């Protein structure tokens, strides 16, 4: 409960709250700030500002010494012959350090001076200096702020302290996510999001969203709300007999899109269709959505905003229906989710190719912490995820309509989504030839015009920040003709079809993270880039012939091989093109950059042609650039077993950490680029090369790798895999296995009743699939137990936390085994009794005695490697274990530990029984498909709001959205689909 409370503080500006949240992502960066007495009060920072005459802030594109800054400014001003200027001294402790800005005073020829300043290559921008008047006050909840007041209440946390703390990180090159350059100067905060995005320019041209039908799927809207002039229809699809919004979410969202007064929306004249699909109790069901979506299709809705989503992309009826909707020309805009900063947290339907998925930024252009990110996980384990969100826009402290009028500020991707939906609505109304507007062409225009944020990778920002006016320009020159390519602007974006991402430069950091974080080499697993094809020509299309790889020979393009897999039909409006890149044998010891491009031609039925069978064609070029290095030695290469991990749970797979009751499902993909991202970055910084195995053990060449890393495996093993792995280990491959709990009594205890499916759910495994692992390990006389332990301890002077882990039941005599004293969590769960167990074996190290044999390491808990809900990381331990497995160096801190004990013989303890027969390959059987053919037994469907803070009565704001009906340790019936408040 304590943790939950802390989450409540997300938007609170309290520094200690921030630090606590911060350490989930930036684990190592700073000392733990004590967080005593964090209350649930909201600290409001209010301020007003005035421009200071003659003074300007010059922002540089990097950090420079005072001397360098001075020379940049003087050289710039010299060319415009401004003499009367000076740098205003700043006397503070940071003066001695490089800075990215300078305050100057210019008393003459200001305009010319400013222009030349901005032209200087090292100067990013020049803004007037402002004097800020700030007052702090605590408030219990957000008070309604009158719209016409100049004061602004900032409800999101500034990320500056965090950013600054991360500067002290001594991390690897890929970690240079450009935090320096992404620092922004605080500036006066814009009061209206529509004006900030310059919607007023389009309003003045007479475009206000007229004749565009926009649907808001939300909590409803009251009948005579003063902000709206064109509410065409309100419908209710819930079991509550009302059309009104009792919560404020729907009103706010509708206001951002179409409010005409106070806090103005983007498209006040748009025809609003209000669909009430969420109750005041924040309940919703897939079936309500299905019926409501059908109505939206019938009503020929042009733009649909869905500030709601859920993790379950395997909810086939829902996913199919969204496809159907966009196939009927409904432009769907949806929130990417509020589960950041953890990776692997994209929500459906925003993660779909045909939907515009929107992430959030604050007014300083930082990605909002809450904004979900990381690749899509549909494609795992065999493939690689797509880039999402598509665009980002303001989602923190945005003002919109209150339930009964007035304005309020809210944060969340729930807020960012209607910003884009409103902008899209406005854009649609600017297009003369409406037939040119479709979900693909609109998305093309948005992503081609988006402004990339510096220092942020594509899995956080997508194509960048929404730029309404540039999108307008692109759309206004969008002239599709019935043939080949039409370039729309200097950016050379093809109108008819385009790709996302539009180029592949695996050397570009940080934008192309994680690709840029590890060069490729001969013998490595192919690097897969999953490109989305947008086809503006028609709802259906196909790739003509095959994608064609054209290496640039002078640029060593022949040093790579490129293979493709792609959608056979591009429908609706989109498809994927997965590009696998590997290094040719002749470049096995070569180092350098290889380049080339891929050409693809897309064809769609030409619906405007009277001749039948005619097709429109469009050809797109995708430049490719990769860095190749000589193959690293075997000892440096670590293979991550993805194949035996699960992406979205097909059944009920409880969390690895049983204390995390609010988030009981493992749904982040368990990939090194999602929730094991910190571990990956750590291994890279230690010089290891980490590759991903997305296929069975029988499919890799073990002589290439020093260590196979298996963390939290849930999948079964084929007999052929077991036999192959045994041979591999005999021949020198080492294993590091981080296991987790598995106890059938506890599993029975954590079963729960689900309202949606109206059935009892029994876990398919515990945290890990120990019976399967034990089968794999049995030949070495090793095995895990069905014990369930929890506790804090110290190992080799490191503080550690064992969160719902198991113990080692059996280990060879001549191995090294470390034990600890823990609480028996199994007993606690089953009988609510506390008992302490001494000498629990948790870590085992073993050298295969045969000549050239590998080494095996077992550890009973994986929580310390997993970014989700990790309390204390154990990357140091992983380092030590890899030293052992890769180089045979036994860490003295372990071999001479006081906790070393005789290895357990396994006598007297029964091996964990299997719940029931689980066939190998059962969970991941649709390898390589985008969406499974087989309907899974429904995992939980949950659609939730993405608003970080919303006030209903006196309820306290909650940070974590219960994404799912949550099973608890004590069986209990729970409300379905509870959106967080």
């Amino acid at each position: 409960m304590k943790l939950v409370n802390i989450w409540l503080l997300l938007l609170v500006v309290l520094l200690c709250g921030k630090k606590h949240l911060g350490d989930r992502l930036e684990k190592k960066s700073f000392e733990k700030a004590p967080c005593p007495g964090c209350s649930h009060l909201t600290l409001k920072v209010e301020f007003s500002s005035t421009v200071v005459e003659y003074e300007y802030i010059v922002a540089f594109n990097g950090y420079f010494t005072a001397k360098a800054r001075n020379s940049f400014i003087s050289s710039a001003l010299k060319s415009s012959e401004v003499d009367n200027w000076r740098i205003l001294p700043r006397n503070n402790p940071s003066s001695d350090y490089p800075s990215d800005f300078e305050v100057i005073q210019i008393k003459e020829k200001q305009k010319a001076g400013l222009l030349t300043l901005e032209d200087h290559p090292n100067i990013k921008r020049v803004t007037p200096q402002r004097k800020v008047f700030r007052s702090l006050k605590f408030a219990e909840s957000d008070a309604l702020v009158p719209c016409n007041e100049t004061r602004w209440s900032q409800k999101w946390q500034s990320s500056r302290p965090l950013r600054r703390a991360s500067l002290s990180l001594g991390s690897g090159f890929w970690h240079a996510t450009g935090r320096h350059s992404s620092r922004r100067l605080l500036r006066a905060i814009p009061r209206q999001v529509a004006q900030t995005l310059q919607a007023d320019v389009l309003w003045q041209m007479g475009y206000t969203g007229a004749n565009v039908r926009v649907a808001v799927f939300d909590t409803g809207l009251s009948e005579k709300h003063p902000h709206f002039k064109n509410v065409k229809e309100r419908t209710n699809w819930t079991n509550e007999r009302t059309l009104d919004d009792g919560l404020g979410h729907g009103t706010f969202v509708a206001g951002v899109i179409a409010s005409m007064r106070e806090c103005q929306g983007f498209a006040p004249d748009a025809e609003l269709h209000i669909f009430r699909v969420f109750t005041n109790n924040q309940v919703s069901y897939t079936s309500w959505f299905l019926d409501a979506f059908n109505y939206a299709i019938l009503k020929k809705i042009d733009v649909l905003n869905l500030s709601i989503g859920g993790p379950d992309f395997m909810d086939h009826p829902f996913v199919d229906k969204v496809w159907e909707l966009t196939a009927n020309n409904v432009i769907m805009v949806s929130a990417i989710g509020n589960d950041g900063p953890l990776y692997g947290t994209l929500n459906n339907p925003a993660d779909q190719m045909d939907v515009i998925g929107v992430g959030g930024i604050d007014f300083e252009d930082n990605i909002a912490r809450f904004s979900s990110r990381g690749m899509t996980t549909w494609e795992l384990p065999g493939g690689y995820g797509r880039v999402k969100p598509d665009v980002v826009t303001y989602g923190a402290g945005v003002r919109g309509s209150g339930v009964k009028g007035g304005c309020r500020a809210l944060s969340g991707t729930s807020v960012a989504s209607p910003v884009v939906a409103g902008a899209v609505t406005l854009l649609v109304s600017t297009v003369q030839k409406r037939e040119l507007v479709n979900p693909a062409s609109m998305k093309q225009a948005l992503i081609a015009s988006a402004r990339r944020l510096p220092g942020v990778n594509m899995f956080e920002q997508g194509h960048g920040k929404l730029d309404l006016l540039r999108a307008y320009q692109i759309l206004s020159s969008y002239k599709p003709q019935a043939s080949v390519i039409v370039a729309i602007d200097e950016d050379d974006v093809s109108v008819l079809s385009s790709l996302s991402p539009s180029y592949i430069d695996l050397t570009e950091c940080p934008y192309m993270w994680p690709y840029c974080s590890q060069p490729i080499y001969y013998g490595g697993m192919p690097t897969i880039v999953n490109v989305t094809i947008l086809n503006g020509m028609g709802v259906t299309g196909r790739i003509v012939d095959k994608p064609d790889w054209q290496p640039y020979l002078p640029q060593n393009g022949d040093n790579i091989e490129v293979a493709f897999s792609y959608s056979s039909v591009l429908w609706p409006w989109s498809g994927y093109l997965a590009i696998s890149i590997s290094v040719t044998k002749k470049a096995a010891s070569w180092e350098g950059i290889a380049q080339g491009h891929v050409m693809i031609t897309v064809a769609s039925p030409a619906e405007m042609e009277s001749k039948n069978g005619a097709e429109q064609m469009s050809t797109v070029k995708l430049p490719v650039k990769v860095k190749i290095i000589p193959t690293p030695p075997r000892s440096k290469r670590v293979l991550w077993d993805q194949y035996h991990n699960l992406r979205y749970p097909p059944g009920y797979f409880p969390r690895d950490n049983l204390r995390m009751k609010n988030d009981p499902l493992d749904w982040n993909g368990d990939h090194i680029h999602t929730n094991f991202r910190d571990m990956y970055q750590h291994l890279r910084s230690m010089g290891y090369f980490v590759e991903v195995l997305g296929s069975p053990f029988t499919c890799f060449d073990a002589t290439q790798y020093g260590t196979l890393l298996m963390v939290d495996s849930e999948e079964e093993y084929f007999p052929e895999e077991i036999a192959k792995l045994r041979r591999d280990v005999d021949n020198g491959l080492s294993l590091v296995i981080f296991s987790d709990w598995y106890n059938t009594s506890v599993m029975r205890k954590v079963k729960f009743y689900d309202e949606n499916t109206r059935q009892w759910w029994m876990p398919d495994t515990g945290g890990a699939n120990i019976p399967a692992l034990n089968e794999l390990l049995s030949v070495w006389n090793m095995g895990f137990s069905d014990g369930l332990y929890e506790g804090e301890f110290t190992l080799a002077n490191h503080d550690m936390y064992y969160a719902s882990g198991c113990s080692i039941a059996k280990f060879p005599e001549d191995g090294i085994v470390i034990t600890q004293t823990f609480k028996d969590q199994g007993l606690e769960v089953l009988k609510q009794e506390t008992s302490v167990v001494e000498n629990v074996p948790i870590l085992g190290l073993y050298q295969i005695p045969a000549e050239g044999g590998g080494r095996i390491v077992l550890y009973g808990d994986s929580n310390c490697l997993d970014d989700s809900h990790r309390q204390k990381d154990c990357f140091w331990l992983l380092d030590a274990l890899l030293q052992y497995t890769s180089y045979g160096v036994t860490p003295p801190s372990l071999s001479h530990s006081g906790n070393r004990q005789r290895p357990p013989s396994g006598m007297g303890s029964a091996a964990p029984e299997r719940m029931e027969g689980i066939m190998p390959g059962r969970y991941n059987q649709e390898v390589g498909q985008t969406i499974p053919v087989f309907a899974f037994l429904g995992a939980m469907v949950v659609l939730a709001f993405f608003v970080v803070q919303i006030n209903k009565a006196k309820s306290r704001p909650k940070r974590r959205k219960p994404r799912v009906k949550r099973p608890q340790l004590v069986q209990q019936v729970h409300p379905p689909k509870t959106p967080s408040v």
Partner: protein
Amino acid sequence: EERAVRDRNLLQIQDHDQPIPWKVQFNLGNSSRPSNQCRNSIQGKHLITDELGYVCERKDLLANGCCDVSVPSTKQYCCDGCLANGCCGAYEYCVSCCLQPSKQLLLERFLSRAAMAFQNLFLAVEDHFELCLAKCRTSSQSVQHENTYRDPIAKYCYGESPPELFPA
């Protein structure tokens, strides 16, 4: 929570006290159509159905929105893949089959018993073609446990009953 479930089920129930004033016109043929334009089912991946009940491949769709009837594969009132319960494997065949003049009785009977959840939708439907487009879509009736289809194969239904629970 039990109440919520019961309420949800209530949506599936029809209210006999308030007969719904349907406005669906079953006037078929060219009479109501402007010139030679056709509305069609828009969404299809491979197939498309026009308002005259013709199903064709997308490439055989004419600029006026009608299927090219001179192509041999174009079929009218086609019920391929439709089961006896009125559920079909493909949306386009469901619409085409539903447009058969003989289905009018069935559709009228369905409308007279339509559940509350469908009032909004079917009150807005103007004619036989719109009714078939709307009726054939998957809906709250198509799912069990919210997130799985009752029948993942034949899920598009013009008939009165929901898809058979699969496996039956």
